[in-house]
């Protein structure tokens, strides 16, 4: 089971989808107005990612290469629909908070990216753990960004007050512009670490500097990295 542990570590730290690979930025910015929403979105994505990775891995020898992308999308969309209906039934408050971003998990680059670059080439157990690791990495990142925005914008974390009463919340951080500023800060830190690392002669090529043009280029980048 060493391989499974390695996959979890890879998703959580080494290739964290948000902080290292910079994938799936739309939901990252849109739903992280609070830590709870970030966590909810992260876990929802984790469920979809793990299950779709498992099924795609099982079907990897059946799906013809030419139609693999549409086939992957159908599998992913099926799980997204299932999760959406479950959330609507059992967690209506989260369902309302996340709204249109739940069905939009379908177009989250992380899921299609993992299907393409990992699950379609590996057996089921490592693929399941790859999905789980990536999903948890995404959840941790989203919760952290959500908590940061909640502290700055409302002085709370998970609804509990943490800042002293004299702190005046900068509510811009829970509004749309704040998302851009927080992400700008994060990418700047990432860039700084990359520059410092390169100065010391470490290989920093894994760290992606910001969003590529789209999922297509991201997939190609993933492929190039796999080939290396």
């Amino acid at each position, binding site marked *: 089971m060493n391989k499974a542990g390695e996959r979890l570590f890879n998703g959580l730290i080494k290739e964290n989808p948000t902080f290292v690979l910079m994938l799936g930025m739309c939901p990252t910015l849109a739903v992280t107005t609070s830590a709870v929403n970030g966590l909810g979105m992260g876990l929802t994505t984790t469920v979809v990612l793990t299950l779709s990775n498992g099924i795609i891995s099982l079907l990897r020898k059946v799906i013809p290469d030419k139609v693999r992308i549409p086939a992957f999308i159908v599998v992913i969309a099926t799980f997204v629909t299932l999760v959406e209906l479950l959330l609507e039934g059992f967690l209506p408050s989260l369902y309302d908070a996340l709204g249109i971003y739940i069905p939009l998990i*379908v177009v989250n*680059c992380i899921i299609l990216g993992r299907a393409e670059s990992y699950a379609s080439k590996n057996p089921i157990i490592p693929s399941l753990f790859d999905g789980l690791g990536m999903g948890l990495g995404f959840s941790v990142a989203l919760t952290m960004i959500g908590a940061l925005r909640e502290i700055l914008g409302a002085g709370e974390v998970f609804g509990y007050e943490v800042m002293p009463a004299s702190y005046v919340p900068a509510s811009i951080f829970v509004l749309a512009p704040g998302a851009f*500023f927080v992400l700008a*800060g994060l990418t700047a830190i990432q860039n700084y670490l990359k520059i410092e690392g390169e100065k010391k002669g470490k290989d920093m090529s894994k760290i992606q500097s910001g969003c*590529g*043009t789209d*999922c297509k280029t991201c997939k190609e980048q993933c492929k190039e990295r796999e080939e290396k």
Partner: protein
Amino acid sequence: MELQNLVLIIISSSLVSNVVLSQFLGLCPFLGVSKKIETAAGMGGAVIFVITLASAVTGAIYNFILLPFQITYLQTIVFILVIAALVQFVEMFLKKFMVGLYQALGVYLPLITTNCAVLGVALNNVKYGYDIFTGVINGFATSLGFAVAIIILAGIREKIEENDIPLPFQGMPIVLITAGLMAIAFCGFSGLL
């Protein structure tokens, strides 16, 4: 649908709840293809074309197939497949019959297939219960908002190219800050409604 309501939808979809700056849909092309005004305008044009068309097609499918058969829970699966197929088809059609338009928009079309804005508009049209015509108007207005935002961002990026920016902030961070400032400016439009 009264004219007044349509005007309201156009203003609110294109400016007030701007698709990128307040809904965060279509961020990847917004950040990725906004280095030059020309390419930004090309991308904006392609997005307007695809989203307007996709709104019409998904609206028709929803109203004439999904609703009568009571299978609306399949909307996510159906919409994403239809959109992917539609973009491919549009690309082939333009390549064959409208070479001029293909040369202007062609390179951007494949980039839009997995753009969340296209699916987002289709889902929003259903969520707000728009009929097909209103949905098309909403799609057009939303994508117009995208085009406006990406062209403004490209204009600013051309200017800040020359500026002296701290090293860690070069590249994506400064673009994100620019986008954030634009989002603040667009917040001002909420007074229009």
